[in-house]
């Protein structure tokens, strides 16, 4: 083997591990705008004609109205919907693990990230979801349901902006609802300065599609919505706007290279 040669070891299944993390949007935030939810449903359809979609409303305390809205957005005519209520385990699926592994798409609702992660851990759902992801079940969610997939996240759900640790399936940091409230952005930058890993900020109406740890596409349900990769470059915090594909019009899909701080993209801050 001569100098410069590399041995390429392809990781099995890496390509099959998919997460679509919404900055905010979908049926719970964008009434009448089906674009993001249609995108994840299309992904799931590649796994099964009538995909199994399971809703996890844990972050809302399993609010009834939220569950009802999910069934309206994902009716039995287009998929095989179900939901898991961790507050009513005496009803519903007996074997949590078997049920999750049998899904094509797991949709995590918004709410309190701390309550979400605490409850999941109590039921071992954190490990089950990681296993499901490795097995090819597509994971998606908004707000707390986006933050949870990353290593670290920025939440202001509990008043002050603070840092949370997620499940770490995506080795990046994440800030959702970007642009709504300046303090969130300032706090995220401060956390990056203090050593938080680089990551992605997503505005409402955008979603980030990952295969394995790699971002492959940034999509939007609103023409102007943007997402960014954000990192600390030593001298400064760099926010790089991601090429975002608006799902409302037919367009050639854009592919985004590598992780955060991609040099070939338009730098904004």
């Amino acid at each position, binding site marked *: 083997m001569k100098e410069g040669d590399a041995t390429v070891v392809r990781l099995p299944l890496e390509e099959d591990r998919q997460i679509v993390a919404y900055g905010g949007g979908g049926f719970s935030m964008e009434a009448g705008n089906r674009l993001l939810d249609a995108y994840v449903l299309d992904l799931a359809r590649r796994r099964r004609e009538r995909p199994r979609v399971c809703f996890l409303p844990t972050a809302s305390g399993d609010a009834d109205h939220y569950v009802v809205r999910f069934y309206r957005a994902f009716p039995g005519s287009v998929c095989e919907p179900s939901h898991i209520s961790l507050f009513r385990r005496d009803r519903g699926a007996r074997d949590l693990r078997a049920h999750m592994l049998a899904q094509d798409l797991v949709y995590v609702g918004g709410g309190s990230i701390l309550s979400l992660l605490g409850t999941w851990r109590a039921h071992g759902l954190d490990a089950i979801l990681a296993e499901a992801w490795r097995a090819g079940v597509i994971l998606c969610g908004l707000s707390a349901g986006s933050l949870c997939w990353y290593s670290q996240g920025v939440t202001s*759900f509990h008043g002050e902006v603070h840092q949370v640790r997620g499940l770490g399936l995506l080795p990046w940091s994440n800030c959702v609802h970007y642009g709504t409230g300046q303090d969130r952005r300032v706090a995220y930058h401060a956390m990056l300065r203090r050593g938080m890993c680089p990551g992605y900020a997503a505005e409402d109406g955008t979603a980030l599609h990952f295969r394995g740890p790699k971002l492959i596409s940034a999509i939007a349900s609103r023409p102007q919505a943007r997402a960014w990769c954000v990192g600390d470059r030593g001298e400064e915090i760099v926010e790089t706007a991601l090429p975002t594909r608006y799902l409302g019009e037919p367009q050639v899909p854009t592919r985004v290279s590598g992780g955060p701080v991609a040099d070939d993209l338009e730098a904004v801050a």
Partner: protein
Amino acid sequence: MSGAIVAIGGTEFTMRPENEALHDYVVGLAGGGPGAVPEPLRICLLPTASGDPHEQIVSFHGAMERRGCLASAISLFRLGVAPVDLAEHLLGQDVIYVTGGSMVNLLALWLEHRIDEIIRAAHERGIVLCGYSAGSMCWFEQGLSRGGGAPASFPGLGLIGGSNCVHYSQDPTRRDAYRRLVGEGAIPGGLALDDHAAALIREGELVEVVRSRETAAAYRVERGADGSVVEVEVPSRLLPPARATTELGLAEMRELRRARSGATAGPPGPGRLGRLR
């Protein structure tokens, strides 16, 4: 001196006489009730175990405000829209009231939000702790929860030694699992409570058992020398009928509600009965 704990086998905040009598008991115990104290009793609901359902919070407010209490609720799932200093608010209460639901989730969320530490501090300060179902078992060393699906033992905060089983006569699956676990020595023996039976505990000692329904009972369930289960009913006191309902009368109350809702008088239809709850 640490505060009293009231463990209730099962109740609700709906205006049924057997629920109302238990609310009178709790409020009376904490020194509240009509004209009992110069200041209104401060009572805070923690509806964590049930996922903070709005209807439950509303009916709690109704039940406690009818008794002249200053009621509040902390919804951990809505801290974003209603931020509150958890320690400051909870330590300023006379009573902390915990609802039923999932004991597993209750303790996981308390731990996540560090409410367990605040509750311990509240107990040491003499604040009355009370609750039903998961909100009863959480005070003991061990409870028997269905929060993970099948009934299984689950550790509580351990402010009271021994174990606790709720809905004892109402949920045979739970009762059987509890008796089996005590018999096997997997969990310590303890106190089993029917719906509408409540135990008053001070300094870890059972002071009395009260009941708001004639048939409700409490049992001490212990492991016998030969591994058998010994179940002994604990004498209990039947509570007087609730003040609110005796003062106004159920029929009058219904009439009042009908008038308030603007409905015309007449035989209550199924829809109207549904709305009473």
